[in-house]
C-alpha cells in the first residue's frame, strides 16, 4: 500500500504568496489545505488534521500568535508548526518560540526550495 501523502496547512493572508507556496508544496507531493485568516485557520486545522502547519503571524482578525497559542493548547498540540513570517524582531521570534513554534522562518530570507527542505526535516 502506498504511503499516504502528508498534509500541510498553509495559513497566509497574502493571495500570491499563498498560491506560490501551495503550488510548490503540491509539486513536492504534499496534500495542501489553506486558510486565509486566524479564525478559519483553527477551524480548518481541526477539520483537516494536517501533519504540519505553516503559520503566518500578521493575519486579519485573530493574529498568528493567538492561533499558535490555541493550537498548542488543543488536541492538535503535537502537530509541528513552522512560523513563516516577515516579522523579524527578536521579541517576535522569542514570543513565537515560547508559545511552542517549532521553527521560525523569515520568508524573504529563503526560497521555497529551502522551505521544502525544512518541512521535510520537520516531518522526519
Amino acid at each position, binding site marked *: 500500500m502506498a504511503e499516504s501523502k502528508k498534509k500541510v496547512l498553509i495559513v497566509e493572508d497574502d493571495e500570491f*504568496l499563498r498560491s506560490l*507556496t501551495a503550488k510548490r508544496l503540491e509539486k513536492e507531493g504534499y496534500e495542501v489545505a489553506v486558510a486565509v485568516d486566524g479564525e478559519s485557520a483553527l477551524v480548518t486545522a481541526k477539520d483537516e488534521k494536517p501533519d504540519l502547519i505553516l503559520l503566518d503571524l500578521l493575519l486579519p482578525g485573530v493574529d498568528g500568535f493567538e492561533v499558535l497559542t490555541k493550537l498548542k493548547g488543543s488536541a492538535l498540540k503535537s502537530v509541528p508548526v513552522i512560523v513563516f513570517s*516577515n516579522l*523579524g524582531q527578536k521579541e517576535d521570534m522569542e514570543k513565537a518560540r515560547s508559545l511552542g513554534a517549532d521553527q521560525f522562518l523569515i*520568508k*524573504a530570507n529563503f*526560497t521555497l526550495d529551502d522551505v521544502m527542505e525544512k518541512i521535510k526535516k520537520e516531518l522526519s
Partner: protein
Amino acid sequence: MESARERLTANLWLVVSRFFVIAALGLLVFLGYAERAGAPALNPPRQGVMFVGLYLVLAALALAWFVALHVSERSRTLQLASFVQVTIDLLFITAFALFSNENMVLVFLGIPVVASAGLWGRRGPLFCAGAAIFLLFLLTTFHSALTLLIAPLGVSFSLGYSSYLVDPALLIVGISLALQSAFASQLGRWVSERALLLKTARSHEPVPRAPTQGESVARTRQELIAKNFELEKANEHLATLDRAKSDFVSVATHQLRTPLSGIKWAFDMLQKGNFGPVNPDQWRVLQKGLESTERTIRIVNEILSIDQMEHQTLEYQFSYRDLREIIAASIHDFENQAKTKGVTLIFERPERLPELMLDADKLRMVIDNLLENAIKYTDAGGTVDVCINTEWLNTATPHVEVTVTDSGIGISQAAQEEIFTKFYRAPNARKQEPNGTGIGLYIAKSIVEGHRGTIWFESEEGRGTTFHYTLPVHQELAQAL
C-alpha cells in the same frame, strides 16, 4: 588658598587643643578653690583631681581617635568629633560650676558656644544653650542619685546652694547663654561674610551680596526642580521619537519583506521551470531579477540590524560551526554575479579547520558584504580572493584570519579614515556604484567585534584592497553580548 586638607588639619588641632584648655580650666578652678576655705561638703582636691583626670582620659582617647583617622578623608567624622567635644565641654563646665560652687566658671560656657557657632552656624549656640540648661537641670534634680552612684569612690558632692536658689541661677545662665548664642551666630555670619569678601577681593570680582543661607538654598532648589522637569519632558519626547522610529523601521521592514518574498519566490519558481520550460535568455533575466531582489532584501535586513544594534536588541546566538561552509555558501551565491562581470572568484579553502564558535547568520552578513564590495568595485578581468589563514590556531589566543583581496578601485587615503562610518561612501565608490547605502562596513565591523575579532584593511587607490578580519575559536561569552 589653603587646601581642604590644611583646613581639616587646622580644625583637628583646634579640637584637640580645646580639650586641654578645658582640662586646664578645670584644674585651675579646683586649685583656686582649694586655696580658699570652701563650702563644707566638697573635698578638694580629690574630687577635683578625679574630675580633671576623667576629663584628661577622655581627651586622650579622643586624641588617639583623631590620630587614627585619616583626617583628609573624614571631614564628616571630624564634624562628629567636634560635636562630641562640644557636648563634653558643656557637661564638664556645668559640672565644674555646680560642684565647685564657682558660678564664674559658667562664663567659660562661652567657649563651646562660640565653637558651635563656627561649626554649625546659627543653630549651634541655640543647641548649646538648650543643652547647658538641660544638663544643669539634670544635675540639680538628680543630685542625690548621682551622689549614691559616686559614693563607692569615697567622694561625695553636695550642692552649695539649695535647689530653690539654683533655679534663678539657671534662669540667669539661660539668658546669658541665649545672648551669647545670638552674639555667636551673628559672629558666625560676620566671619563667613568676611571670608567671602576676602575671596572676592582676591579674585578682583565685584562683591556680590552674600545671600542668606535660606534664600540661596530655596532659590537653587527651585531652579533644580524646574530644570529637572524640563529634562524629564525632553527625555520623554526623545523616547517617543525613538520608539516611533523603531516602530517605523520594524513596520517598514516587514512591509517591504512581504512583496520582496513574492518577487523572490516568483522568479525562483519561474527560473526552476515550475511554470513551463525556460530558455537561456529568460533564465538569465530571471537571474538578474533574483540578484536585485536578493540585494534589496539584504539592505532591508541591514537596516533592521542597525536599528536593533542601536537598541542593543541584537543578540548573538553562538554555536560551533564550520566557517568554510559559510564562506562557500556565500561564494556560491555570488558566482553568477562575478562571472557576468568577468571577475574571477577564488576561495583558498583550507583542508582542515576546527569549528569556530560563531553566530552564523550574522557572520554571513559580514562575508556577503565584503564579497559584494569586492566584486562590485573590481573591473572585468580582475580577481577576488578569499583566504582563511590558520597560522594562529595553536597560539595562546587561537583564532583565524580571513582575508578578502580584490584588484579593484581601492580606497583613497582620505576615505580610509571614514570607511567604517555609518552611511559613508568613498567618492570613487559612489561614482562607480551610485546606489549604495554605506551601511555594509559599519555592520560588518560591529558584527566582527561582536565576535571579539578585529577588522582592518590595506588599500591603494587604483590597485586594490585587502580586508582582514579575525575570529577567535572560542567565545568566553556564549550568550548575547
